[in-house]
């Protein structure tokens, strides 16, 4: 099982001091957090994509590209890549490039985004959220898998004889997770392609997660990718830890009480009982996290949210120390002992290359013949 962290990249004032980091500080802090994640032995760092304040994560591949150069094993991912408002051609190119830079240590999580105004800024309409996710992702898959693409759809300029470059590393596109909180169509999409399904599993009761994952697993089997319990599931989670659970609650409360996503609503105690948020000792986090398996089954990736709501960088790094030293080693051992042999691990670049038979030559093929329209599809296979 892979363990890691995911960040939404918000700039939020620290309620205990009133001070917000500058954008420069926040961008750099994401990098510091990612490097620390590798140092403490985590597997994955994932970064969100937003195009509006208070977020600073509009350009994930820039940050992830830098982190790749400074790390050796960490898998870099997104949480999420906006498949609705980002041109799929640009996603194909950006992430194929990142794959080469990263020697394959990269995957993606697709999401729709939920802030209404962002859609029109990119010439889209939020009411088309699902159709955009369906059409754009289909195009993205073809751009990665077919050397020359002729394509026409509803939302984007048609493509004739288009080759997305660079071609994916070793001929194998990055593994894709589809993230959604409660849209069955997105779980269906993940199941249809045999891709991973990620539930962010924070801010809402676990019943939503359970229903979505169960549906995804059932449909994964329906589409013939394997048995339901072999489907590839990722979960989020949110924790705040101190050795003593009372200290954790006392320290986290001001952040909870004023955080934009929580403030003014249910109390910290209500929220921790109603959602997977866990504020307490490392032992409590271990117990709660192991309990996720009870309602989603054996799953492949667990990402924690630890760096939002204005928590200072120093505190976030302390959380990473606790995760790396006390929590994740126990979770790794316990989850591994429980997992049946036929349940696969999360796909990696190496496992995808092995599944494809071998690495393919990634030489750019000749473009389509402009006169006959004939493409090289098939000729290279």
């Amino acid at each position: 099982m892979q363990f890691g962290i995911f960040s939404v990249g918000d700039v939020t004032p620290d309620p205990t001091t009133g001070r917000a980091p500058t954008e420069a500080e926040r961008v750099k802090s994401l990098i510091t957090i990612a490097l620390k994640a590798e140092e403490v032995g985590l597997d994955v760092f994932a970064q969100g994509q937003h195009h509006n304040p208070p977020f600073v994560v509009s350009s994930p591949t820039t940050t992830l590209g830098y982190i790749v150069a400074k790390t050796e094993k960490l898998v870099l991912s997104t949480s999420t890549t906006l498949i609705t408002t980002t041109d799929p051609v640009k996603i194909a190119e950006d992430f194929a490039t990142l794959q080469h830079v990263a020697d394959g240590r990269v995957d993606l999580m697709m999401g729709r985004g939920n802030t209404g105004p962002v859609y029109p800024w990119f010439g889209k309409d939020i009411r088309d959220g699902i159709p955009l996710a369906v059409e754009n992702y289909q195009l993205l898959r073809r751009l990665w898998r077919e050397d020359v693409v002729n394509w026409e759809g509803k939302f984007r300029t048609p493509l004739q004889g288009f080759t997305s470059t660079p071609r994916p590393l070793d001929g194998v596109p990055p593994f894709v997770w589809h993230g959604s909180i409660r849209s069955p169509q997105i779980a269906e999409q993940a199941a249809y392609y045999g891709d991973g399904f990620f539930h962010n599993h924070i801010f809402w009761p676990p019943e939503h997660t359970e229903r979505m994952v169960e549906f995804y697993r059932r449909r994964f089997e329906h589409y013939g990718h394997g048995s339901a319990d072999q489907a590839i599931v990722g979960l989020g989670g949110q924790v705040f830890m101190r050795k003593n659970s009372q200290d954790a609650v006392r320290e986290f409360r001001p952040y909870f009480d004023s955080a934009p996503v929580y403030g003014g609503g249910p109390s910290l105690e209500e929220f921790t009982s109603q959602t997977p948020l866990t504020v307490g000792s490392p032992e409590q986090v271990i117990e709660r996290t192991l309990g996720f398996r009870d309602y989603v089954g054996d799953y492949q990736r667990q990402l924690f949210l630890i760096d939002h709501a204005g928590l200072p960088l120093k505190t976030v790094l302390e959380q990473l120390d606790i995760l790396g030293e006390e929590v994740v080693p126990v979770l790794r051992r316990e989850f591994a002992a429980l997992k049946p042999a036929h349940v696969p691990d999360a796909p990696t670049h190496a496992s995808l290359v092995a599944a494809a038979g071998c690495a393919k030559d990634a030489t750019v093929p000749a473009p389509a013949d402009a006169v006959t329209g004939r493409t090289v599809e098939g000729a290279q296979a």
Partner: protein
Amino acid sequence: MATRTLAVVSAGLSTPSSTRLLADRLTAATVDALRARGDDTTVEVVELRGHARDLADDLTSGFANQPLQTAIDTVVGADGLIAVTPVFSASYSGLFKTFFDVLDKEALTGKPVLLGATAGTPRHSLVVEHAMRPLFAYLRAVVVPTGVFAAAEDWAGGGIDRSLAGRVERAAGELAGLVTGRPVAARPADPFADPATSFEELLKGR
């Protein structure tokens, strides 16, 4: 003979509450009217006062806690709905509006509804028509023609009370007529049932 479920939403804030009193009168009359048409009725009352904090929490967190979710399921799954609010600042109360705000926007589509309101003065008597009916029209509920408004003096008895009783009876008869004309309510469609439309159809943009 069928057994119908009737959900009753009362937004009264005091105990005892004249809003609840009107809701109870409307409920009893509707149960009688359904019995006269040959149907038994199961009544489920949702007192919004008990969910005031749950509703505020839902506004900020985006999800209903368990007690509120149970109340929502009761209303959404009922064959008919009686909804009664006190008049606050010339309209339904904020508590009443919030409950209908947190429902899915399709949750009441086609549902037979009887509307009632209470106030201290008869000068608010058009609140049902001017405030409540547009709200339920937006929600695409089927609202009976008679809305029942009760001012303080309507509870005084005598001729006025007979007038209130007449309105209650007429409205209850209208609601019972709509309810019996329909199949017993099914639960809302399960969004996690296996899709009726294949993913191939979605890919084709259908």
